[in-house]
């Protein structure tokens, strides 16, 4: 049976009819064609599917779309500025070589933006703990941590 689910995705109203068992990530990727959110492990380990729900990082492969009814969802497609220039965290990943193959990057960036909110001086240790739910199979953690530290400062000064 299909059921309606309505949410705000990247600031725009989205309303789709889906099977009740549909995951949030499936709605984002297959219904709304926002394929920047990735499915890596599909078992809640890797964090490639991380999006924001009402401002908080969550794993979109580990929740039903119905659990996001009425919520504000932000995906990687929604973080850049309207003129196309990069979000400070995206710019920091580019500047500090925070990605290799790029598969984990959308999840890393989404988690990072939430993690550093209001914490411009977040420490390396705090960043590493904050990344427990995101895996990089290229093992590029060192530059990811550097990028996030720089992104935290850039986000604070951009305000």
């Amino acid at each position: 049976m299909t059921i309606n689910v309505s949410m705000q995705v990247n600031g725009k109203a989205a309303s789709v009819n889906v099977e009740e068992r549909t995951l949030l990530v499936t709605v984002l990727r297959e219904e709304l064609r926002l394929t920047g959110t990735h499915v890596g492990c599909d078992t809640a380990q890797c964090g490639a599917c991380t999006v924001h729900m009402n401002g908080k990082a969550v794993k979109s492969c580990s929740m039903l779309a119905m659990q996001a009814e009425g919520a504000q969802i932000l995906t990687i497609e929604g973080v850049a500025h309207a003129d196309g220039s990069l979000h400070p965290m995206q710019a920091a990943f580019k500047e500090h070589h925070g990605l290799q193959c790029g598969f984990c990057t959308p999840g890393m960036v989404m988690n990072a933006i939430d993690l550093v909110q209001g914490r411009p001086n977040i420490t390396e240790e705090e960043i590493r703990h904050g990344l427990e739910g995101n895996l990089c199979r290229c093992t590029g953690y060192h530059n990811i941590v550097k990028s996030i530290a720089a992104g935290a400062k850039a986000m604070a000064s951009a305000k």
Partner: protein
Amino acid sequence: MYAFTYHRPASAADAAALALKHTDGKILAGGQSLVQAMKLRLASPSDIIDLGTAKDLVGISQKGNQITIGAMTRHAAVEQSAEVKQLIPALADLAGGIGDRQVRHMGTLGGALANNDPAACYPAAVLGLGATIQTNKRTIAADDFFKGLYETALESSEIITAVTFPAAKRAAYIKFKNPASRFALVGVFVAQMDQGVRLAVTGAASCVFRVPEMEKALGAAFTPESIAKIHVSADDLNSDLHAAADYRAHLITVMAKRAVSKALGQ
């Protein structure tokens, strides 16, 4: 995932009525275990009763020396709560170590207890502090709640509404993490209460359990040394690819000593 019918009750009472009607249904809290189990087809409920909109199940309140946490309160909210950090810092610390931060934004106290995963963290705090579980029907003491592997005292249509934790004089939780899942290979929660010391172990056996011999020794002298020679038998402990039973037995004493040191601020 197999198909199911989705329900969105507005309150715990409505959810209980739905659970009574759909006996092959499941209550959905944060979904961090249930949704994964359904994806793997380990669970195939006919109906999903989503507590996400039951507003009467969320919140943290302090009354004297006790803190009551609504069943649908997320781990991250407990981790960051000023009241919890002030009155029972060990509980905030435990909540902040569950899974990862994305999981903590969704996972709930009630869901974790109703699921009673043998390696979950929350059961150790609930049993270790001697908390009280409130349901839509009755009040259950922690000592009577955890029954076995994924098994609790809850009846089929019974829903946890809140948990009340008493403050401890001193308390701490330490877990030896499985590095991939961050579940406890062995986790120990120790609490020095007015009535004596309580010590609960998670991750080691089919279900969280207390260690009376350690509690007695710590009651006499609350130091890591007093339990250094107390060993839990490996007979009923879990053996799996992560750790053999005798290794888990060894870890219990090590983690218990570290928990006592942590409670003492060492």
